[in-house]
Protein backbone atom coordinates (compact mmCIF):
# COMPACT_ATOMS: atom_id res chain seq x y z
CA UNK A 1 0.00 0.00 0.00
CA UNK A 2 2.68 2.46 0.96
CA UNK A 3 4.89 1.28 -1.90
CA UNK A 4 2.07 1.99 -4.32
CA UNK A 5 1.58 5.45 -2.86
CA UNK A 6 5.27 6.23 -3.05
CA UNK A 7 5.49 5.08 -6.66
CA UNK A 8 2.49 7.25 -7.58
CA UNK A 9 4.09 10.23 -5.90
CA UNK A 10 7.34 9.65 -7.77
CA UNK A 11 5.33 9.49 -11.00
CA UNK A 12 3.70 12.81 -10.13
CA UNK A 13 7.05 14.44 -9.37
CA UNK A 14 8.54 13.21 -12.63
CA UNK A 15 5.53 14.50 -14.58
CA UNK A 16 5.81 17.88 -12.90
CA UNK A 17 9.50 18.12 -13.77
CA UNK A 18 8.70 17.13 -17.36
CA UNK A 19 6.05 19.85 -17.45
CA UNK A 20 8.62 22.39 -16.39
CA UNK A 21 11.51 21.36 -18.57
CA UNK A 22 9.84 20.60 -21.86
CA UNK A 23 9.83 23.08 -24.68
CA UNK A 24 6.52 22.45 -26.31
CA UNK A 25 3.46 23.92 -24.66
CA UNK A 26 1.23 20.98 -25.57
CA UNK A 27 3.57 18.51 -23.84
CA UNK A 28 3.62 20.69 -20.76
CA UNK A 29 -0.17 20.75 -20.57
CA UNK A 30 -0.36 16.97 -20.97
CA UNK A 31 2.24 16.49 -18.25
CA UNK A 32 0.19 18.69 -15.92
CA UNK A 33 -2.74 16.43 -16.70
CA UNK A 34 -0.65 13.41 -15.76
CA UNK A 35 0.05 15.02 -12.38
CA UNK A 36 -3.69 15.45 -11.87
CA UNK A 37 -4.44 11.85 -12.78
CA UNK A 38 -1.77 10.59 -10.40
CA UNK A 39 -3.20 12.76 -7.66
CA UNK A 40 -6.65 11.30 -8.26
CA UNK A 41 -5.25 7.77 -7.93
CA UNK A 42 -3.59 8.80 -4.65
CA UNK A 43 -6.94 10.08 -3.35
CA UNK A 44 -8.59 6.81 -4.28
CA UNK A 45 -5.94 4.80 -2.48
CA UNK A 46 -6.35 6.97 0.60
CA UNK A 47 -10.09 6.15 0.62
CA UNK A 48 -11.49 9.53 -0.41
CA UNK A 49 -13.81 8.79 -3.36
CA UNK A 50 -15.46 12.23 -3.41
CA UNK A 51 -12.09 13.88 -3.82
CA UNK A 52 -11.05 11.36 -6.49
CA UNK A 53 -14.17 11.97 -8.57
CA UNK A 54 -13.86 15.75 -8.28
CA UNK A 55 -10.15 15.67 -9.07
CA UNK A 56 -10.49 13.53 -12.20
CA UNK A 57 -13.43 15.46 -13.57
CA UNK A 58 -11.96 18.87 -12.94
CA UNK A 59 -8.56 17.80 -14.22
CA UNK A 60 -10.03 16.63 -17.50
CA UNK A 61 -12.14 19.77 -17.84
CA UNK A 62 -9.21 22.02 -16.99
CA UNK A 63 -7.00 20.20 -19.47
CA UNK A 64 -9.53 20.59 -22.23
CA UNK A 65 -9.91 24.26 -21.40
CA UNK A 66 -6.16 24.81 -21.39
CA UNK A 67 -5.51 22.99 -24.62
CA UNK A 68 -8.36 24.63 -26.41
CA UNK A 69 -7.54 28.04 -25.12
CA UNK A 70 -3.89 28.25 -25.84
CA UNK A 71 -2.45 26.19 -28.53
CA UNK A 72 -2.06 24.13 -31.59
CA UNK A 73 0.64 21.54 -32.12
CA UNK A 74 3.78 23.50 -32.72
CA UNK A 75 3.86 26.24 -30.13
CA UNK A 76 7.01 26.50 -28.08
CA UNK A 77 7.54 28.34 -24.87
CA UNK A 78 10.04 31.09 -24.49
CA UNK A 79 12.95 30.78 -22.14
CA UNK A 80 12.72 34.31 -20.83
CA UNK A 81 12.89 34.41 -17.08
CA UNK A 82 14.35 30.92 -16.77
CA UNK A 83 17.93 31.98 -16.33
CA UNK A 84 19.62 34.42 -14.05
CA UNK A 85 18.95 35.09 -10.44
CA UNK A 86 15.17 34.69 -10.48
CA UNK A 87 14.94 30.88 -10.29
CA UNK A 88 17.56 30.82 -7.55
CA UNK A 89 15.61 33.37 -5.52
CA UNK A 90 12.39 31.40 -5.95
CA UNK A 91 14.11 28.18 -4.95
CA UNK A 92 15.60 29.82 -1.88
CA UNK A 93 12.20 31.17 -0.85
CA UNK A 94 10.59 27.74 -1.29
CA UNK A 95 13.34 26.15 0.76
CA UNK A 96 12.82 28.62 3.60
CA UNK A 97 9.10 27.90 3.47
CA UNK A 98 9.79 24.17 3.76
CA UNK A 99 12.14 24.72 6.70
CA UNK A 100 9.57 26.71 8.60
CA UNK A 101 6.74 24.31 7.92
CA UNK A 102 8.83 21.36 9.03
CA UNK A 103 8.56 22.75 12.53
CA UNK A 104 4.84 22.05 12.41
CA UNK A 105 5.33 18.46 11.33
CA UNK A 106 6.21 17.46 14.89
CA UNK A 107 2.70 18.18 16.13
CA UNK A 108 0.87 16.38 13.39
CA UNK A 109 -0.27 12.76 13.87
CA UNK A 110 1.42 9.98 11.95
CA UNK A 111 0.41 9.06 8.45
CA UNK A 112 -2.87 7.13 8.48
CA UNK A 113 -3.82 8.07 12.03
CA UNK A 114 -6.81 10.43 12.03
CA UNK A 115 -6.82 13.58 14.12
CA UNK A 116 -9.70 12.38 16.25
CA UNK A 117 -7.56 9.56 17.66
CA UNK A 118 -5.04 12.07 18.95
CA UNK A 119 -7.16 15.02 20.01
CA UNK A 120 -9.89 14.43 22.55
CA UNK A 121 -12.52 16.93 21.47
CA UNK A 122 -11.98 17.02 17.74
CA UNK A 123 -15.05 18.22 15.82
CA UNK A 124 -14.80 15.24 13.48
CA UNK A 125 -16.06 12.97 16.27
CA UNK A 126 -19.21 15.07 16.50
CA UNK A 127 -19.67 15.11 12.72
CA UNK A 128 -19.27 11.36 12.37
CA UNK A 129 -21.60 10.52 15.21
CA UNK A 130 -24.38 12.94 14.37
CA UNK A 131 -24.03 12.99 10.62
CA UNK A 132 -26.75 10.58 9.69
CA UNK A 133 -29.04 11.49 12.56
CA UNK A 134 -28.96 15.25 12.20
CA UNK A 135 -28.79 15.66 8.48
CA UNK A 136 -30.18 12.43 7.08
CA UNK A 137 -27.36 12.10 4.55
CA UNK A 138 -25.29 8.89 4.65
CA UNK A 139 -22.50 10.58 2.72
CA UNK A 140 -20.71 12.32 5.57
CA UNK A 141 -18.64 14.45 3.19
CA UNK A 142 -21.80 15.99 1.79
CA UNK A 143 -23.26 16.32 5.27
CA UNK A 144 -20.23 18.32 6.40
CA UNK A 145 -19.93 20.32 3.18
CA UNK A 146 -23.56 21.27 2.82
CA UNK A 147 -24.99 21.16 6.30
CA UNK A 148 -22.48 21.51 9.10
CA UNK A 149 -20.07 23.73 7.17
CA UNK A 150 -22.34 25.13 4.49
CA UNK A 151 -20.97 28.63 4.99
CA UNK A 152 -17.62 27.53 3.55
CA UNK A 153 -19.39 26.10 0.53
CA UNK A 154 -21.06 29.47 0.06
CA UNK A 155 -17.59 31.00 -0.03
CA UNK A 156 -16.50 28.41 -2.58
CA UNK A 157 -19.50 29.09 -4.79
CA UNK A 158 -18.71 32.80 -4.61
CA UNK A 159 -15.14 32.08 -5.67
CA UNK A 160 -16.31 30.21 -8.77
CA UNK A 161 -18.82 32.94 -9.55
CA UNK A 162 -16.26 35.73 -9.24
CA UNK A 163 -13.56 33.88 -11.15
CA UNK A 164 -15.82 33.05 -14.07
CA UNK A 165 -17.32 36.47 -14.39
CA UNK A 166 -13.93 38.08 -14.01
CA UNK A 167 -12.66 35.91 -16.84
CA UNK A 168 -15.63 36.80 -19.01
CA UNK A 169 -15.15 40.48 -18.32
CA UNK A 170 -11.48 40.37 -19.21
CA UNK A 171 -11.92 38.31 -22.33
CA UNK A 172 -14.72 40.20 -23.94
CA UNK A 173 -13.73 41.86 -27.16
CA UNK A 174 -16.19 44.69 -27.37
CA UNK A 175 -17.99 46.96 -25.03
CA UNK A 176 -14.83 48.49 -23.64
CA UNK A 177 -14.78 52.24 -23.36
CA UNK A 178 -13.09 53.58 -26.43
CA UNK A 179 -10.49 56.28 -26.36
CA UNK A 180 -12.59 58.44 -28.62
CA UNK A 181 -15.86 59.15 -26.86
CA UNK A 182 -17.54 60.14 -30.09
CA UNK A 183 -17.77 56.54 -31.21
CA UNK A 184 -21.20 55.11 -31.49
CA UNK A 185 -22.12 53.01 -28.48
CA UNK A 186 -24.41 50.78 -30.48
CA UNK A 187 -21.54 49.75 -32.71
CA UNK A 188 -19.95 47.76 -29.93
CA UNK A 189 -23.24 46.01 -29.22
CA UNK A 190 -23.57 44.86 -32.80
CA UNK A 191 -19.97 43.69 -32.75
CA UNK A 192 -20.64 41.57 -29.70
CA UNK A 193 -23.73 40.10 -31.31
CA UNK A 194 -21.76 39.26 -34.43
CA UNK A 195 -19.03 37.64 -32.41
CA UNK A 196 -21.43 35.25 -30.78
CA UNK A 197 -23.58 34.48 -33.77
CA UNK A 198 -20.68 33.90 -36.05
CA UNK A 199 -21.69 30.83 -37.95
CA UNK A 200 -19.43 28.15 -39.26
CA UNK A 201 -15.96 27.17 -38.29
CA UNK A 202 -14.36 28.82 -35.37
CA UNK A 203 -10.86 28.09 -36.59
Amino acid at each position, binding site marked *: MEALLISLLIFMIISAVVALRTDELLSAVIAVGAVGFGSSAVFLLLRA*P*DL*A*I*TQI*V*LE*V*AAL*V*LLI*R*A*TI*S*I*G*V*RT*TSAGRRGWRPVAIAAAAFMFLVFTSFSFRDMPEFGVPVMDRVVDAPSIFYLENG*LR*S*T*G*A*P*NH*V*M*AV*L*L*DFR*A*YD*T*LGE*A*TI*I*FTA*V*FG*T*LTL*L*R*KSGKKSRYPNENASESQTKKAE*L*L*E*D*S*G*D*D*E
Partner: protein
Amino acid sequence: MMNRSMIIERVSRWMTPFIFLYGVYVILYGHLSPGGGFPGGVIMSSAFILILLAKGKKQALQSLPYGLAKKLDAIGALAFILTALLGFMFTGVFFANFLQQLWPGEPFRLLSSGTIVLNNIAIGIKVCASLFLVMLFLSILRIPLDEKGQIESMEDR
Protein backbone atom coordinates in the same frame (compact mmCIF):
# COMPACT_ATOMS: atom_id res chain seq x y z
CA MET B 1 -6.49 21.51 -37.15
CA MET B 2 -9.81 20.05 -36.09
CA ASN B 3 -11.19 17.41 -38.39
CA ARG B 4 -14.93 17.82 -38.27
CA SER B 5 -15.33 14.27 -39.44
CA MET B 6 -18.55 12.38 -39.51
CA ILE B 7 -17.41 9.81 -36.97
CA ILE B 8 -16.84 12.44 -34.33
CA GLU B 9 -20.16 14.12 -35.01
CA ARG B 10 -22.15 10.91 -34.91
CA VAL B 11 -20.48 9.52 -31.82
CA SER B 12 -20.76 12.80 -29.97
CA ARG B 13 -24.42 13.06 -30.85
CA TRP B 14 -25.02 9.66 -29.27
CA MET B 15 -22.82 10.17 -26.27
CA THR B 16 -23.94 13.64 -25.21
CA PRO B 17 -27.27 12.61 -23.63
CA PHE B 18 -25.57 9.87 -21.61
CA ILE B 19 -22.89 12.20 -20.35
CA PHE B 20 -25.54 14.72 -19.36
CA LEU B 21 -27.60 12.01 -17.65
CA TYR B 22 -24.58 10.82 -15.71
CA GLY B 23 -23.95 14.37 -14.54
CA VAL B 24 -27.54 14.68 -13.36
CA TYR B 25 -27.20 11.33 -11.55
CA VAL B 26 -24.04 12.42 -9.72
CA ILE B 27 -25.77 15.61 -8.60
CA LEU B 28 -29.02 14.03 -7.45
CA TYR B 29 -27.38 11.12 -5.62
CA GLY B 30 -24.78 13.38 -4.04
CA HIS B 31 -25.97 12.72 -0.53
CA LEU B 32 -25.98 8.94 -0.96
CA SER B 33 -22.88 8.09 -2.98
CA PRO B 34 -19.64 9.95 -3.65
CA GLY B 35 -19.88 12.98 -5.86
CA GLY B 36 -22.09 15.92 -5.14
CA GLY B 37 -22.77 19.23 -6.76
CA PHE B 38 -19.32 20.22 -8.00
CA PRO B 39 -18.25 17.16 -10.01
CA GLY B 40 -21.79 16.64 -11.23
CA GLY B 41 -21.90 20.17 -12.59
CA VAL B 42 -18.57 19.74 -14.35
CA ILE B 43 -19.76 16.47 -15.96
CA MET B 44 -22.93 18.21 -17.16
CA SER B 45 -20.90 21.02 -18.65
CA SER B 46 -18.61 18.54 -20.39
CA ALA B 47 -21.61 17.36 -22.40
CA PHE B 48 -22.02 20.88 -23.79
CA ILE B 49 -18.27 21.25 -24.24
CA LEU B 50 -18.34 18.05 -26.31
CA ILE B 51 -20.95 19.62 -28.57
CA LEU B 52 -18.77 22.73 -28.82
CA LEU B 53 -15.66 20.76 -29.73
CA ALA B 54 -17.29 18.35 -32.13
CA LYS B 55 -19.81 20.45 -33.95
CA GLY B 56 -18.69 24.03 -33.61
CA LYS B 57 -19.82 27.17 -31.95
CA LYS B 58 -23.15 27.59 -33.71
CA GLN B 59 -24.54 24.23 -32.60
CA ALA B 60 -23.23 24.72 -29.08
CA LEU B 61 -24.96 28.08 -28.82
CA GLN B 62 -28.15 26.47 -30.05
CA SER B 63 -27.95 23.85 -27.34
CA LEU B 64 -27.26 26.31 -24.53
CA PRO B 65 -27.55 29.94 -25.58
CA TYR B 66 -25.26 32.58 -24.19
CA GLY B 67 -27.92 34.60 -22.34
CA LEU B 68 -29.45 31.48 -20.85
CA ALA B 69 -26.09 30.29 -19.58
CA LYS B 70 -25.44 33.60 -17.85
CA LYS B 71 -28.88 33.54 -16.26
CA LEU B 72 -28.47 29.94 -15.11
CA ASP B 73 -25.18 30.82 -13.47
CA ALA B 74 -26.77 33.64 -11.53
CA ILE B 75 -29.88 31.59 -10.70
CA GLY B 76 -27.74 28.80 -9.25
CA ALA B 77 -25.87 31.16 -6.98
CA LEU B 78 -29.06 32.92 -5.90
CA ALA B 79 -30.86 29.63 -5.22
CA PHE B 80 -28.04 28.60 -2.92
CA ILE B 81 -28.40 31.79 -0.90
CA LEU B 82 -32.18 31.51 -1.02
CA THR B 83 -32.17 28.14 0.74
CA ALA B 84 -29.86 29.63 3.36
CA LEU B 85 -32.24 32.55 3.91
CA LEU B 86 -35.24 30.22 4.03
CA GLY B 87 -33.46 28.33 6.76
CA PHE B 88 -33.09 31.59 8.61
CA MET B 89 -36.78 32.39 8.17
CA PHE B 90 -38.01 29.00 9.31
CA THR B 91 -35.74 28.23 12.24
CA GLY B 92 -33.79 31.38 13.02
CA VAL B 93 -30.42 29.87 12.11
CA PHE B 94 -28.76 30.90 8.87
CA PHE B 95 -28.11 27.90 6.60
CA ALA B 96 -30.10 25.57 8.82
CA ASN B 97 -31.26 22.35 7.22
CA PHE B 98 -34.84 23.38 7.86
CA LEU B 99 -36.42 20.71 5.69
CA GLN B 100 -34.74 17.95 7.64
CA GLN B 101 -35.51 19.50 11.00
CA LEU B 102 -39.16 20.24 10.37
CA TRP B 103 -40.13 17.39 8.04
CA PRO B 104 -37.53 14.68 8.46
CA GLY B 105 -37.21 12.09 5.72
CA GLU B 106 -36.07 8.51 5.81
CA PRO B 107 -32.35 8.08 5.31
CA PHE B 108 -30.98 6.38 2.16
CA ARG B 109 -33.84 7.59 0.00
CA LEU B 110 -33.49 10.05 -2.79
CA LEU B 111 -35.65 12.75 -1.26
CA SER B 112 -34.15 12.68 2.20
CA SER B 113 -31.71 15.03 3.91
CA GLY B 114 -33.52 18.25 3.26
CA THR B 115 -31.74 21.20 1.77
CA ILE B 116 -28.66 19.16 0.86
CA VAL B 117 -30.36 18.03 -2.35
CA LEU B 118 -31.49 21.57 -3.18
CA ASN B 119 -28.03 22.98 -2.59
CA ASN B 120 -26.48 20.25 -4.72
CA ILE B 121 -28.81 21.05 -7.61
CA ALA B 122 -28.11 24.79 -7.31
CA ILE B 123 -24.35 24.27 -7.30
CA GLY B 124 -24.58 21.79 -10.17
CA ILE B 125 -26.47 24.20 -12.41
CA LYS B 126 -24.10 27.00 -11.50
CA VAL B 127 -20.91 25.09 -12.23
CA CYS B 128 -22.31 23.73 -15.50
CA ALA B 129 -23.19 27.16 -16.84
CA SER B 130 -19.95 28.71 -15.61
CA LEU B 131 -17.63 26.20 -17.23
CA PHE B 132 -19.55 26.26 -20.48
CA LEU B 133 -19.27 30.05 -20.58
CA VAL B 134 -15.54 29.97 -19.91
CA MET B 135 -14.99 27.37 -22.62
CA LEU B 136 -17.09 29.37 -25.07
CA PHE B 137 -15.10 32.51 -24.46
CA LEU B 138 -11.78 30.74 -24.64
CA SER B 139 -12.70 29.21 -27.97
CA ILE B 140 -13.98 32.41 -29.49
CA LEU B 141 -10.87 34.37 -28.74
CA ARG B 142 -7.54 32.96 -29.81
CA ILE B 143 -4.06 34.10 -29.10
CA PRO B 144 -2.50 34.89 -32.47
CA LEU B 145 0.81 33.27 -33.38
CA ASP B 146 3.57 34.84 -35.40
CA GLU B 147 5.54 32.98 -38.05
CA LYS B 148 7.89 31.11 -35.76
CA GLY B 149 5.04 29.62 -33.77
CA GLN B 150 5.74 31.80 -30.77
CA ILE B 151 2.99 33.61 -28.94
CA GLU B 152 3.39 37.17 -30.02
CA SER B 153 3.55 39.89 -27.46
CA MET B 154 0.43 40.76 -25.58
CA GLU B 155 0.92 44.48 -25.66
CA ASP B 156 -0.95 45.16 -28.83
CA ARG B 157 -4.03 43.06 -28.14
